[in-house]
């Protein structure tokens, strides 16, 4: 098993890259996966609002409290550039300024040419800004109605806040005749699996391709060819090494996933997601082997890893959900294996429409990629073998 040992000796030198990828991945995934509740509870999309209270009166403070009942408040300095930056990067969804004189104007409206009570800073129209706008309008309407009916401003503000704190009845349902979603594989946890294709491609291409390219170097190859190791034994050890390496990488990510999951995976959907990941790990390994067939240098391998990894991840729905991508992009993405991995993952998590037969179809598509890649690798190695034999024959002649 000399070749097998050599394989892992080279792999050990690349352990740093693998640890780096896993470390960054877990650091990003852990908070994302644990950022929201179970999917069977309705969870209102939270709106982060910055309220700048220029009035600082009882009425304006009552309004701030009322807004805080339904939204997440955040503090920002009254500086337009800072507000703009926060809104551009979506740290804050909406910014409202309660203008000076708010309480006075509510108590004594000045008529038709009334000054606006609020300034709402906008970057672009969003659901969040529309919701906050509606909330403020209704709050003021209620306050005016109650004050007109004889309540004091304090009472009116209190009543308006209470009226607008009433929530509509919402229920998450499974349509009749449909399978209830598997609670063991939530859409939050599915995020962990969603990012895996990028990592598998990056690691496999960066590490496996580099190992195989090193072993395929002309001088190495010549040394191995004149050694006592038979070619068949050499090839089978390389094959075994690649297989063990693939299972090892897949295993590391599945175990890391359990840390994020909080225990051993439960349920059929989790099992299928793990299988989906395994199938894709094999695809990534075959892509790496295919790339190494061309004997690229380190820079080219690195570039291919980044372009394939980032490119497929963006276009096929790993970084941006498939539901957000345009029809044209999704159509083009079908030619890449990551698309089918992501589609199966989304179906399992209930993010996209689809049952187990659709998941099976995705597995089948991924299986076809495995067959295609194996055929390509065999053809390329056969051609290369043929060329080598031709050269040897020519040299002998």
């Amino acid at each position, binding site marked *: 098993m000399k070749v097998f040992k050599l394989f892992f000796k080279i792999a050990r030198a690349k352990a740093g890259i693998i640890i*780096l990828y896993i470390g*960054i991945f877990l650091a990003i995934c852990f908070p994302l996966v644990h950022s929201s509740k179970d*999917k069977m509870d*309705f*969870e*209102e*999309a939270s709106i982060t609002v910055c309220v700048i209270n220029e009035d600082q009166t009882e009425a304006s403070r009552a309004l701030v409290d009322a807004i805080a009942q339904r939204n997440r408040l955040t503090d920002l300095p009254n500086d*337009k550039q800072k507000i*703009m*930056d926060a*809104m551009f*990067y*979506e*740290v804050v969804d909406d910014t409202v300024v309660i203008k000076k004189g708010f309480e006075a104007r509510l108590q004594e409206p000045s008529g038709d040419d*009334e000054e*606006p009570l609020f*300034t*709402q800073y*906008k*970057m*672009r*129209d*969003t*659901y969040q800004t*529309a*919701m906050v706008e*509606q909330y403020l*309008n*209704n709050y*003021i*309407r*209620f306050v*005016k*109605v109650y004050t*007109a*009916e004889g309540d004091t401003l304090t009472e009116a503000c209190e009543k308006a806040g209470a009226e607008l704190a009433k929530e*509509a*009845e*919402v*229920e*998450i*349902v499974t*349509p009749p005749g449909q399978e209830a979603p598997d609670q063991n594989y939530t859409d939050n946890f599915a995020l962990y699996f969603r990012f895996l294709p990028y990592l598998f491609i990056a690691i496999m291409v960066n590490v496996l391709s580099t190992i195989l390219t090193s072993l395929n170097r002309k001088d190495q190859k010549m040394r191995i060819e004149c050694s006592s190791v038979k070619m068949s034994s050499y090839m089978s050890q390389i094959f075994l090494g690649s297989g063990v390496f693939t299972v090892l990488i897949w295993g590391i990510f599945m175990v890391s996933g359990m840390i994020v999951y909080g225990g051993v995976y439960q349920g059929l959907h989790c099992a299928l997601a793990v299988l989906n990941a395994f199938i894709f790990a094999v695809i990534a390994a075959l892509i790496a082997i295919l790339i190494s067939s061309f004997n690229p240098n380190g*820079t*080219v391998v690195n*570039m291919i890893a*980044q*372009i394939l990894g980032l*490119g497929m991840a*963006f*276009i096929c729905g790993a970084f*941006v959900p498939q*539901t*957000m*991508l*345009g029809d044209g*992009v999704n159509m*083009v993405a079908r030619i890449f294996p990551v698309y089918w991995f992501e589609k199966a993952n989304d179906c399992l998590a*209930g993010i996209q*429409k689809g049952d187990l037969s659709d998941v099976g179809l995705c597995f089948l598509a991924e299986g076809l990629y495995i067959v295609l890649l194996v055929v390509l690798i065999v053809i390329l190695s056969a051609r290369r073998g043929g060329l080598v034999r031709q050269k040897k024959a020519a040299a002998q002649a």
Partner: protein
Amino acid sequence: MFFHNLKYEIILNLRAKEVIIWMLLFPIALSVLYKAAFGNVYENGGITTVPVAVVEHEPDEMFRSMINYMGESESTVDGTESNLGRWLAKTMQEKNQQEDGERKPLFHAIYCNEEDAYRMLEDGDVKGIIFVDAPEGAAALSGDTQDADTSGDASDTVTAEWGAEAIKHFREAWGGDAVYENADAEEILSGEGLTLQDMTSFQDMLDKKSSLTLKIKSNGMEQSSIKRFLEMYSALTGITAHLADGGDTDSSSVMDAAVIADEKLTEGNTDPFVTYMYNMIAMVALFGMTVALHVALFSEANLSDYGARRSCSSTPKLTTIMAGLCGCFLSQILCVAVCITFQAFVLKVDFGGRLPFVYLGGALGAVMGVSMGFFVGAIGRLKYEAKIGISMAVVMGLSFMSGLMFSGIKASIEMSAPIINDLNPVAIVADSFYYLSVDPDLTRYWGKMVCVLLYTVVFILLGFLLTRRRKYESL
């Protein structure tokens, strides 16, 4: 000799396979992929019309009118609209047109039966189903109405007067001008094309408040917006009921109060996905590190054969290094310019109309990247390949933190440790493009450019300090 070296430095750089791959092909390929993935995500702005199914177990004209006011609707079930329903829809539509004829509909309501609604929810054709049911105690209400209907002429007069008053309020609140100042009840009703029976329905409608339930398949912003719409509707019907019963309350001042003044923060490009493109250019600029490594490495006799040959040549070391640096500056600026040109003119990325400053920012970023490469090349005795690997890892790491792969990461860093963004060279260059796009003036842009120049000066000085006055016992 300087120009001779400069010429060959540029030729050497532009013929290097790595430079062509990393500085030209890689960013162009990635830009195309970014554009393909994000190009249409924000092309319609932040808001898209939310499709929603409505299942009416109990018809509610007011709710139907409000849905039409907020959006558009279609029906797949047979049903006849009442005279009152048509009047409400017409009044609300007039209000909608008065406010903003171009407003994008928030909802697309599909009236259908329960079975179709669930099918559409499962297929993802709608984001939620709104069930309109009779309110609790509906039987009692209808019983009261029947009593009122059969109680004779006196009751009719009460309903007509109440109805006329309610219509005046409703018109003031929703229909613009109040045109019935001195009209009696019958004139108002006939003017609106309504009957006493409609007024009885109107009274019931305001009194009853249908029970509205939202059923969804999964959480999300669109689902939350439907929920908030139901809450807003509930609040509005509450206000309308108060106004209808409120006697002297000035309805138009309550409903029409212009309480919010919108202030647009920028006229620039507010698409958050454009930051991926900014980061891409910044990354290419910083890849100058890998290009410039050889400037120091190939001038040190103990680190490379080139260095040994150059050490015994007659050309002064300063001239060789300066020519190498200038060559790297020029070739790297060229690569960044190609990347910006491709994005601006082929992919049509909106840089906010200040393209010359974008080129300037990119060029200074490239100079900073080269100076960092010169410094990294000068420190330690690591081999060229090892330093290339380190430089690539550093640039990709800095790009990651600046949001090249995941745009939210930069905002997270800004919230927890803003100093990291202030020091990250990739983030500095990317921010300068962002400021160019959104700021009306160039103050913050120049601030970032000063940081870039400071980095450049510091790294070049450190590089020179590390490479100067090296002597070797033997070569």
